[in-house]
């Protein structure tokens, strides 16, 4: 079961089984906490502590050299008026809502094609999966820069048809879309997840439906797709959460600037610039980080709300 499914079942089972299991003995508690100690320390020192600290810092100005100065709602007001921030927020949302569904649709389509017990499955799976292992690396971002450059591979291909392509990376209208393509290029890992999910669907459902005279299309929409929706949903939620945090590719492709004309200035890149390049304001960066958390939570919430209309749980 996926981690999201796990979270869901935790809440569901809590609701269903009112009776609590008997209390663990003191010795069990000690053993449990001892095994859990590294994780617990990590949770407090590197997650909960810093979360609280960054919430506090988000109400300050902090340049690392002098102690934080209280800013009240100054950072929030500044955010509201920061045009670059809203621009970067806009392109990030655009990137997320376009690239994630595109990637998942391609992943699902190929998983369906490959799931026919066809020869060479493992070969195709490997080839399609390889890019998603490398896609996050600097080397691939560098490659992308050249593939979509003015004299790059894409324009070389277009030239065969007599088309004189622009420098995709250096053109404000196209740069973001090269990053979308890069994301779609890494469809292999969701594809593997979908393949595993398809294997879970009992063959007898298909057989029974076939006996009843259901055709291929009908079987897909009445059996395969509904039974796969929890996995699709899970991927959608997680990929969106991760896509909001994309950083490396935009950084490398734009040389750290988010250019041309801020067209690849992902939210996280702008946040990085505020936190680590002069003039440093870690307070403002913290405000931005918390806003990002709220946005991601909001999108996840919307996903969950929408899931009632299309996700089918077999329990």
């Amino acid at each position, binding site marked *: 079961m996926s981690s999201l499914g796990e979270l869901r079942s935790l809440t569901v089972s809590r609701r269903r089984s009112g009776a609590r299991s008997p209390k663990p003995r003191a010795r069990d508690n000690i053993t449990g906490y001892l095994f859990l100690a590294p994780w617990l320390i990590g949770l407090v020192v*590197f997650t909960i502590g810093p979360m609280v600290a960054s919430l506090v*810092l988000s109400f300050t100005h902090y340049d690392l050299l002098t102690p934080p100065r209280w800013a009240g709602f100054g950072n929030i007001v500044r955010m509201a008026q920061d045009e670059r921030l809203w621009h970067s927020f806009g392109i990030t949302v655009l990137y997320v809502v376009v690239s994630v569904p595109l990637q998942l649709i391609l992943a699902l389509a190929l998983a369906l094609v490959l799931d026919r017990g066809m020869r060479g499955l493992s070969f195709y799976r490997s080839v399609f999966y390889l890019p998603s292992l490398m896609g996050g690396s600097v080397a691939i971002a*560098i490659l992308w820069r050249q593939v979509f450059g003015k004299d790059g591979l894409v324009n070389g291909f277009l030239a065969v048809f007599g088309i004189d392509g622009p420098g995709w990376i250096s053109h404000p209208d196209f740069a973001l879309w090269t990053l979308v393509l890069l994301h779609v290029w890494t469809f292999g890992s969701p594809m593997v997840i979908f393949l595993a999910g398809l294997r879970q669907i009992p063959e007898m459902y298909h057989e029974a439906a076939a006996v009843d005279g259901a055709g291929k299309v009908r079987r897909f929409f009445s059996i395969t797709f509904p039974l796969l929706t929890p996995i699709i949903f899970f991927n959608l939620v997680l990929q969106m959460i991760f896509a909001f945090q994309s950083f490396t590719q935009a950084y*490398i492709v734009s040389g750290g600037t988010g250019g041309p004309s801020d067209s690849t200035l992902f939210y996280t890149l702008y946040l990085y610039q505020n936190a680590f390049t002069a003039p440093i304001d870690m307070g403002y960066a913290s405000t931005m980080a918390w806003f990002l958390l709220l946005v991601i939570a909001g999108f996840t919430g919307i996903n969950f709300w929408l899931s009632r209309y299309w996700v089918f749980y077999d329990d």
Partner: protein
Amino acid sequence: MTALDAETPIVLAPRRRRRRGRRPIWQSILRHAALLALCVIMLYPLIWLVVSSLKPNADIFRDLSIFPSHLTLENYMKGWTAQEFPFGQFLLNSAVVAVGAIIGNLVSCSLAAYAFARLRFRGRSLFFAIMLGTIMLPFQVVLVPQFVIFKDLGWLNTFLPLIVPKFLATDAFFVFLMVQFIRALPDEIFEAARIDGAGHLRIYAGITLPLMTPALATTAIFTFIWTWADFFGPLIYLRSPNEFTASIALKGFVDAQSSSDYGSMFAMSVVSLVPLFIAFLIGQRYLVRGIATTGIK
């Protein structure tokens, strides 16, 4: 091989062979042709990268074909020494960070996973839910205070900020992966050990760890790949060139691109991808199984 089997149902269930043999042959030829075409499109940029790295620098953008007229290793020799330190130093740094992270993840995540999967203690399900929640937490929210902590500890310009958190199981994804695996192990093994009087430490170290080697292998390989390709961490914590990881060193080629030495840049990109490729070849089945069981890339 019970340990292997415990996780297998999801991935290795018998392959379906629906309507075997009844599909017309031209249809399956067409299907393979389309898939192979897609393979070529997917891999073409990578092939072009490798081939270009072997071309003389002047030819790279003049002749875009992947069948070059002459090959040379010149780019590799130039790129290796193009920066303040030889590229081998950066590869070594990446390797040190990766090995540290792997050890940390293996130890800390397996301890936590054992607790979640096999032990009963107060607050377990709450902690478990929190652990799952942290997988989804955007790291930017903890970024600034973590940076300040490491700065105050005097750990900037060291590998410690990249390694120490791994010893505290901050990669919750792997805890979850291992919990899934331990849960699928048969209860009888643990009961038998209890009856024989084994304590939890012995059951963890002597029984659980050996049985969960596939999960440990998956963790090691994923950790290697993610750490090797990591850019953000090294970018903010490593400032002096002798500590640069390969990712950061590659960025140097982008920064200095006025020199337009694309050959060196391509060559070192290839060098930095080779370990990822090897990890992929060795660990493919663990990787595939890992993402299939947890559903996370």
